[in-house]
C-alpha cells in the first residue's frame, strides 16, 4: 500500500540507513490502516533522534524536554480525551533521564501508547552509552566501554505489572509485525509499552541492523501473554535469541476511569464557574 500525503511531514534529519525511517513508515501505515485523521492523534515526544519523529508526519504534537515525555502525555490525557496519545522516546530519553516517570506512569496506567526507539546508544549527542547499551560499547567518555549493566525494559515493565509489554524491531521482516503491535497497543485500554529495537548506523556498531536481524525471533504462535511468570522468563532471553512480540497483557482500570470531566463539552466551553458558584467559593470561610 502506497502512503498517501495525509501524514506527510517535514523531511527527516536522520542519517541515511537509520532505523527511525522504518518506524516512521510503520507508524504512518498504522494511522492510515486505522483510518485516523491527523487531528485525532497527538504525539508527545522528548529530545533525541527518535523524538524528532512527530515533525516528520502530521498530527498534534508536543515535542517537549529530554526525558519528560510521559508526564506531559499524562497531563494531556487527564484533561483531553479527544486524541489518541502516542508517546515517543529514545532509550536515553525514557530509561535514562526519564526513568522515574516510566515507573509511575505504569502505576497510573493512563491510556497512552509508548514507543521507545531503542538503539542502545545516545544518538543525538554522538554515541555515549545509553541505559540499554551493552558493556562493550565504547565512546569518548567511556573509552573502556560501558561500566553499567544494560537495563531490561521488558522485565522492568512486567515486574511493575504494566498492562501491555511488547518488543518490536524496526527492520524488514519486523515491519508488518511492528504495525500489528502498534495497532494492538493503540487499541489497548491503558498504558502500552513497545520497546522497538532500532539500528543506529552512526554510533552503534555492535547492535547493527544485521545483528538485530540475526539475533531476533518472533514469540511462537500460541504464546500466552496472560502469564506474567512466563512473560518475565521470556523477557530475560537475550544472549541466545531476542524474542519479538507481545510479552504480557492485562486489562485493568485506567487513570482516565476516575476523570471528573474529561469530555468534549468541557473543552469547547470557557472554563469558568457560574456567579453563584463563585459566590459560594468566596463565602466558604465563615
Amino acid at each position, binding site marked *: 500500500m502506497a502512503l498517501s500525503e495525509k501524514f506527510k511531514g517535514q523531511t527527516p534529519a536522520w542519517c541515511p540507513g537509520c532505523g527511525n525511517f522504518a518506524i516512521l513508515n510503520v507508524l504512518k501505515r498504522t494511522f492510515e490502516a486505522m483510518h485516523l485523521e491527523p487531528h485525532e492523534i497527538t504525539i508527545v515526544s522528548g529530545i533525541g533522534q527518535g523524538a524528532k519523529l512527530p515533525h516528520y508526519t502530521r498530527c498534534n504534537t508536543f515535542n517537549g524536554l529530554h526525558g519528560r515525555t*510521559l508526564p506531559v502525555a499524562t497531563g494531556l490525557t487527564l484533561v483531553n480525551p479527544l486524541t489518541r496519545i502516542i508517546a515517543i522516546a529514545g532509550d536515553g530519553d525514557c530509561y535514562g533521564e526519564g526513568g522515574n*516517570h516510566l515507573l509511575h506512569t505504569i502505576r497510573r496506567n493512563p491510556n497512552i501508547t509508548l514507543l521507545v526507539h531503542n538503539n542502545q546508544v545516545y544518538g543525538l549527542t554522538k554515541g555515549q552509552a545509553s541505559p540499554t547499551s551493552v558493556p562493550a560499547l565504547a565512546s569518548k567518555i567511556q573509552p573502556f566501554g560501558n561500566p553499567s549493566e544494560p537495563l531490561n525494559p521488558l522485565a522492568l515493565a512486567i515486574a511493575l505489572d504494566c498492562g501491555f509489554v511488547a518488543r518490536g524491531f524496526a527492520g524488514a521482516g519486523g515491519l508488518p509485525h511492528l504495525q500489528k503491535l502498534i495497532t494492538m497497543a493503540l487499541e489497548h485500554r491503558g498504558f502500552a509499552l513497545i520497546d522497538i529495537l532500532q539500528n543506529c548506523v552512526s554510533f552503534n556498531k555492535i547492535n547493527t541492523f544485521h545483528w538485530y536481524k540475526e539475533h531476533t525471533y518472533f514469540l511462537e504462535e500460541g504464546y500466552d501473554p496472560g502469564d506474567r511468570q512466563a512473560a518475565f522468563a521470556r523477557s530475560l532471553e537475550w544472549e541466545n535469541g531476542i524474542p519479538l512480540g507481545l510479552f504480557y497483557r492485562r486489562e485493568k482500570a485506567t487513570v482516565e476511569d476516575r476523570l471528573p470531566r474529561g469530555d468534549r463539552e468541557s473543552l469547547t466551553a*470557557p472554563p469558568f464557574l457560574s456567579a453563584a458558584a463563585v459566590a459560594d467559593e468566596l463565602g466558604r470561610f465563615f
Partner: protein
Amino acid sequence: MDITIRIGGEAGQGMQFIGSALAGIFTRRGLHVFTHQDYMSRIRGGHNFYQVRFSDRPVRCSREKVDILVALDGRTIEVHRDDLDPRGIVLYDERMTRSSYPEPRFKNIPFLALTEELGLAPIMANSAAVGAILGGLGLGLDTYAPVVDELMGKKGKEVAASNLRVARAGSDHVDKMVWPGHLRCGEPGGPPLLLLNGSQAIGTGAVVSGCRFYAAYPMTPSTGIMIHIASRAKAHGIVIEQAEDEIAAINMALGASFGGVRAMTGTSGGGFALMVEGLSLAGMTEIPVVIAEVQRPGPATGLPTRTEQSDLLFVLHAGHGEFPRVLFAPGTPEQALYLTNKAFDLAEKYQIPAIIQSDQYLADAEWSYPKLDPAPLRCLDYRDRATDGDAADYQRYRFTDSGVSPLAVPGLSPRLVVVDSDEHDEEGHIIEDAETRRRMVDKRWRRKWPALRAEIAQPLLYGHDRPELLLVGYGSTYGIMHDAVDILGENRAAAMLHFSELWPFPDPALGDYLNILRQARLAICVENNATGQLARLIRGETGFEFPAFLRKYDGRPFLLEPFMDEIHGLIGKI
C-alpha cells in the same frame, strides 16, 4: 480591645484545634482576627504554638506580647513566660505541665479532670481550654457548636456534642475564677467575618479562575493549596494529580494546559528548583501555566516548616534562556486571591508562565474579612475553542503584532496544534536558521513585553502621601508594615510602599513611587531574608539605593513590638 492568645504544646496535642476553634468563634462574633502558626518538622512531640490575636478593629500581624498563654505542657511556660504581658495570664493544667506555678497570673485549671469527670477521652481536654477562654472573655458558648462541628467534619455529631459538654465545664470552671477585667470582651457586635489563610486564598483564586488541573508533589508549606483545591475538586471537576516528583508535576501541568484547560502546580523552593527546566519549557512553547512557590528558609531542606522571603531573585530569574514571566507576591490572603486570578488571566492572555510567590507565614496565617468581592475577578477565555476550521488555516506560532498567537485545543477541530521545545517556525516545527530564530525571540519576548508590562499595578502606598518615614517591602510583610504605619502615623508622616506585583517590575514612569522613595527622609527596606533581595531588585530596576534595612532571617516572621523597636532604632540613627 486587642488580645493575643498563644497556645503552646507538643505536636499532636491539639493546639491547632484550640486555636482554630477560637479564631472561628471570634470571627462568627464579628471580631477581627489574625492568627499565625509556629511548628516543627515533626508529627509528635517537640514544641509548637498557635497564636490568635483578635480585636474590634482589623489586625494584620502578630504581637510578641501575649495576653493569654495556654500551656499544654511545661515547656510552653519555660519558652514563652518572658513574652507574657505584665498584665497577662497563663492557663494551664498542672497535670499537663507537671508543675504548678504559685503566682496569681498563673491559672491552674484542671482541663483533664473536667473531661474525665464527664467520662470523656483526655484529648477532649482541649475543649475545656476553649470553653475556659470563652468563659473568661465573657463571650459565652453560643457559636461554639457550629464551629466545632465544622472543624470535626466527618467525625460526627456525637463527638461535637461531647466537646460542647467539656467546653461548658471549662467555661463554668472559669466563672468561679478571678479573670482580669482588661481581658473581658463585652458584647461584640458586628456581622460574622470570613477567616482564611494564604493557602486557602490561593486555592480559591485558582478555583474561581476556572483552574481544571492541579498536579504537585507534597511539600511543606505549599501542600495547603493542593488540599484546598482537592476539597473543591469534586464540585468543579478539577483533576488533581500527585506527581512522582516536581519535574513530573510541572510537565503534567503543561500537558494539561496544552490539552485545553487552565492548569497549575505548586511547591516550595526545593521543588521549584526541580521545576526550573519545565518553566523554561513553558517559556519556549508559550503554554500558559500558573505556579505557586511557597517559600521556607533555605538553602536546601533548610527549616521546612518555617518562613522566609529568600527565593525572590531565584524565582525571578529561574530558567535557562530568555522569556517573559509574571511574578506576584501577595501580602495578604485577599491579595493572594485576586493576584492568583490575575496570574491565571495574564498567563492565558500572554501565553506565559505566571508565578505566585508566597511563604509559610502567609500560607498559614489567617486573616478575617467582612466579605470577598467577586467583582474584581477577571474571567475571560483566551483560547480558540472552535470546533471547525482547516488544518491549513492554523499555525500555533503565527507571527502577530502582539506576539500572541491563537491557542487552539488539540482534537477539537482539524487544526493541528504543534508545540516544540526546540526553536521552531510558525507551525511549530524545528528550525535552525538565524532569521526565524530572531523573529521568534522577538515574538515571544519583545512584542509581548510592552503590553504585559502595562498590566502591572503600581506598588501600594498606604499612609501619608508624602511620607518622611517610608517602610518598603513585598509579600508577607504587608501586615506588619501596615500596622506599624498606623502606629507611626500618629507622630509623623509615615507610610508603607508595598510591592505585590513584582515582574514585570512596575514602571516608575507610570506612577509616583520613585519620587516618594526619593523624597522620604528615611526609606527602610523590610525583608524576611539575609541579603536584601528586594532592595537589590529595586536598585537594579530604578537605581534607588536604600539608606536603611530591616532584615530577619531566623525562620520566624516579624512580630510587632520588636519590629517597632527596630524602626525606632533606625529612626534614632538619622
